[in-house]
């Protein structure tokens, strides 16, 4: 979950007083208000709206939503001399793309510098996937000499002073010695060459996606003009990301200049691409999806509230989507934009008359019937976790080996349960202070590995019922009485055959057989097991699979 925390006074300068009514509007816009106090306002930004991750962009969207601002248009200036970046072949198989721009005439102050760094960080961590997909760099123009080259060199041949570091070191050392280097080292794992931006004076600007140079990669309050780049492997994401930052910088008063990108492999292009994108849609599709009638005028009004222009081109409804939006993939996304502008609270709920026959899953019905029968015998139903520990399983099934484990569990539970009885006995062991007798049962799934060709997961899931009774003088009779009653109520017959199982006392353990098929075990629990759980009284128990009832 990404939370955007904004300086309330700065935001109010842009959008006016934030009243409780405006706070509601913020939530209605699809950016739920998390917190609001005198100084700060926090909102949640959904992962599909990285474009809202800055004060400037958020304020623009809110103003549009409140009907105070038109959809944005960006005036971009043509490239000046040497506004060029060459992408050399050497970098194409490591970090193949970069999109770039020059910004002039910015008036930086503390707050603005912080804001820029903040957007950068937020984009790195959201759509940038912790710099894996996107890394952004900004360099004051007065410190570098254009044109720029984007190339790759062996790490030992890369040498510069990284940000926040006292001296010049090579690429390899950066990954080893610099804290940021260590944090992101895995992103260059296995690369023989590392990517760098280098200027016309052969000065290294940065080694993306790791770090900038201390000499050229730091903006200060005196910075007015700068070079900005995004590098990564997916060109369309890079372009979107660049547009998000530039649209924010544009709001801050920066003048944006295009650059020529000379890709040695893919040819020349111009960057950034801040033209809006057009998407055609049909008004009836929107109406059917939302269940409301909409005139063209209303569509236009609602889209504009979402910062999107509406045009009717040759009788084709067209949404003109600003360059910073990354989330409009299909006309269905236009439908949601209109729904948000219309106001979710304004939709009148209806329940249609579709005739359909209800039916409950057979196993659910069975489980409810059994649950009610057992509750009628004063048994208490428990509900325990499907994930347990190997140690717990081993307290019962000491020679069990075929564990199904999950990777990197954040709790101690990292193994799927193989039976329910182990859970019941654990529950009993944790309830020694509760009054005896304790009679408990549970129904649910247990897991085992399978070699069945038709299984997509290689794991078989079986519904089981387990019952455990504990008291000073509990024995086989009580548990068999319950089994008897249960089968009588279900109008079914079973047989018991002697068997041996290490969890039960020898001579007091039986297989339960229904129509010639073994469905489970019943008996008195072996004292070894009781000792393992520090249980001081006898337990009689059973566990059966419920498949036979289907």
């Amino acid at each position, binding site marked *: 979950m990404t939370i955007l925390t904004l300086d309330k006074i700065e935001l109010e300068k842009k959008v006016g007083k934030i009243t409780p009514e405006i706070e509601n509007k913020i939530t*209605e816009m699809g950016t739920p208000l998390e917190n609001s106090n005198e100084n700060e306002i926090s909102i949640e930004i959904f992962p599909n709206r990285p474009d809202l991750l800055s004060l400037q962009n958020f304020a623009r969207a809110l103003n549009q939503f409140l009907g105070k601002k038109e959809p944005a248009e960006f005036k971009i200036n043509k490239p000046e001399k040497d506004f060029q970046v060459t992408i050399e072949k050497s970098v194409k198989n490591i970090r193949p793309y970069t999109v770039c721009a020059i910004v002039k005439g910015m008036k930086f102050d503390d707050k603005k510098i912080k804001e820029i760094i903040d957007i950068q960080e937020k984009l790195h961590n959201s759509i940038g996937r912790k710099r894996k997909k996107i890394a952004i760099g900004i360099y004051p123009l007065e410190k570098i000499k254009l044109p720029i080259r984007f190339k790759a060199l062996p790490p030992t041949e890369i040498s510069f002073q990284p940000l926040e570091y006292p001296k010049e070191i090579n690429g390899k050392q950066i990954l080893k010695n610099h804290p940021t280097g260590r944090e992101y080292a895995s992103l260059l794992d296995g690369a023989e060459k590392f990517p760098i931006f280098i200027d016309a004076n052969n000065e290294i600007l940065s080694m993306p996606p790791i770090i900038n140079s201390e000499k050229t990669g730091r903006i200060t309050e005196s910075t007015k003009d700068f070079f900005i780049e995004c590098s990564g492997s997916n060109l369309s994401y890079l372009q979107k990301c660049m547009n998000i930052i530039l649209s924010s910088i544009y709001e801050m008063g920066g003048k944006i200049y295009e650059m020529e990108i000379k890709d040695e492999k893919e040819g020349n292009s111009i960057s950034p691409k801040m033209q809006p994108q057009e998407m055609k849609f049909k008004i009836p599709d929107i109406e059917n999806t939302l269940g409301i009638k909409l005139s063209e005028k209303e569509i236009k009004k609602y889209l504009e509230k979402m910062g999107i222009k509406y045009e009717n081109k040759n009788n084709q409804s067209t949404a003109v989507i600003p360059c910073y939006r990354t989330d409009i993939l299909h006309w269905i996304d236009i439908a949601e934009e209109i729904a948000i502008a219309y106001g979710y609270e304004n939709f009148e709920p209806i329940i249609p008359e579709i005739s359909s026959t*209800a039916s409950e899953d057979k196993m659910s019905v069975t489980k409810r019937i059994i649950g009610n029968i057992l509750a009628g015998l004063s048994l208490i139903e428990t509900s325990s976790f*499907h994930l347990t520990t190997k140690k717990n399983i081993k307290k019962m099934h000491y020679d069990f080996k075929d564990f199904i484990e999950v990777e990197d569990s*954040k709790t101690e539970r990292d193994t799927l349960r193989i039976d329910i009885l182990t859970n019941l006995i654990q529950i009993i062991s944790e309830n020694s202070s509760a009054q005896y007798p304790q009679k408990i049962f549970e129904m649910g799934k247990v897991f085992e590995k399978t070699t069945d060709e038709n299984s997509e997961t290689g794991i078989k899931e079986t519904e089981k019922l387990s019952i455990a009774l504990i008291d000073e003088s509990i024995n086989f009779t009580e548990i068999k009485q319950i089994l008897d009653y249960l089968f009588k109520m279900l109008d079914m017959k079973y047989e018991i055959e002697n068997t041996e199982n290490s969890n039960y006392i020898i001579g007091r353990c039986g297989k339960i057989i229904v129509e010639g098929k073994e469905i489970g075990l019943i008996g008195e629990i072996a004292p070894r097991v009781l000792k393992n759980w520090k249980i001081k009284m006898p337990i009689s128990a059973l566990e059966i699979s419920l498949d036979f009832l289907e």
Partner: protein
Amino acid sequence: MDENLIIESLSPIERTLLPKLEKDWKEIKELSKNAATDQTSALRGIGFLKNKELVETKTEEEKVVDLGILGIHYLKNELPERILLDKLQERKIIPISEIKNVCGLNDNESKVALGTLKKKAFVEIKKGRLEITAKFEEINKKMPEELLIEKLPLKLEEIKDLEKLALENLRSRKDIVEIKDEKKIFVKLTPLGEKISKYKIDDNLIESLTPKIIKQNSWKGKKFRRYDLSTPVPRIYGGKRHFVNQATDYAKSIWLEMGFKEMTGNMVDTSFWVFDALFTAQDHPVREMQDTFFIKNIEGKLPKKKDKEDKIIETVKKSHENGIDGSLGWRYEWNEKDSKKVLMRTHTTCLSARKLREIGEKKEFPTKYFALGKCFRNETVDWSHGFEFNQTEGIVVDENANFRQLIGYLKQFFKKMGYDKIRIRPGYFSYTEPSLEIDAFHPVHKKWVELGGAGMFRPEVTIPMFGKHIPVLAWGPGFDRIITQFFKITDLREMYKNDINKLREMKVWKK
């Protein structure tokens, strides 16, 4: 209450106790002795009398010195020092090494016995042998320690200065004496009690109705002793379904009443059905290990149709890479291996995905399905997060389905779950558009709390299933959070703790 009624409601124990009570304080112990009954019954009887306002009670606490386990033993068999002294008188001289055997004492006892006698200057050790040095009369007088244990139990304050030293000596030795806090309960009659106790109490009331009395008609003309109906009775507990299951049964009935069919399925599934078929990009954070329980060392299989690869795989790949039906897609290279990863389902929406595929093949719609089952997230557990929780899932497949209907179904469900005030606001899920979140107003915290999400499946999800875009309403609010308010659970860790006392006491689901 009428005095006669009071008399008629006196139970046998009350009738026994009443004449033994006075207007001055009397200790319960003494009272039970006088009334020839045990203390527990007397206490119960006093309780009844107190309810009728016939007696008053007060409790005093005091420290009492009493014998410990060894003390009781020594009282019967003499203190070790006395045993030693007796033997010494008999034999005159005992070698130190033989004290144990001669006296039948253990190591510790013989050491203590010797030490005590030396301290009192009764004996002397000469060349490893013990001899008596004190006079005969002195020796045969009872020692203060002996006197004290004979007098116990005593109130601590009653111990005289002379006895205090003996008490200290005994206390320094284990288990001979102990100081206990003792509660004493005193009881006396109230003015009303005095009055009642003066009446002649008719003991001709019937206490219990027996088969004999019924048969012989001997109840005729007699009165039954009146019960005090407000008297508390011992607690009993019944068997019951787990409270979460009581609530899930109810929630299922809501969906069934609205004509939904139940869908169920595996808790372990492949990433293909949990993520890919739901248009969740392969680099989406939810697919990382820190959020999801992937199963170790198992590679799953993609769906098959009659031994051939299912066509759906190709369409899903296309929808992710370059999009279908005019969609732009996620624009990356879709990797089959990632979709074969096996995991604990992170949502029940994988059941919807599989069901949609089935419905699409059979072309059986309009139709409505629901599921209610466990989901798994690799979370650090705290009061508001569990790693296993229930989700209530639903889909409506209908060419005429729309957003208003989605809100209609959800409002209806939440209303029946006891939430009258809910808010619908925009939300985001990679597989639905439009998407919404449902909030409920928390009456105690006075703020909106999130209950769950819903939406309409995106064309990128429905087209691989149906061959074209069919509107599908879909929802999957977390269920456990919805029911915490009813059961007054403030910490989600309580849900599956299985504290038997709590399960016994927990009220039943009722909406």
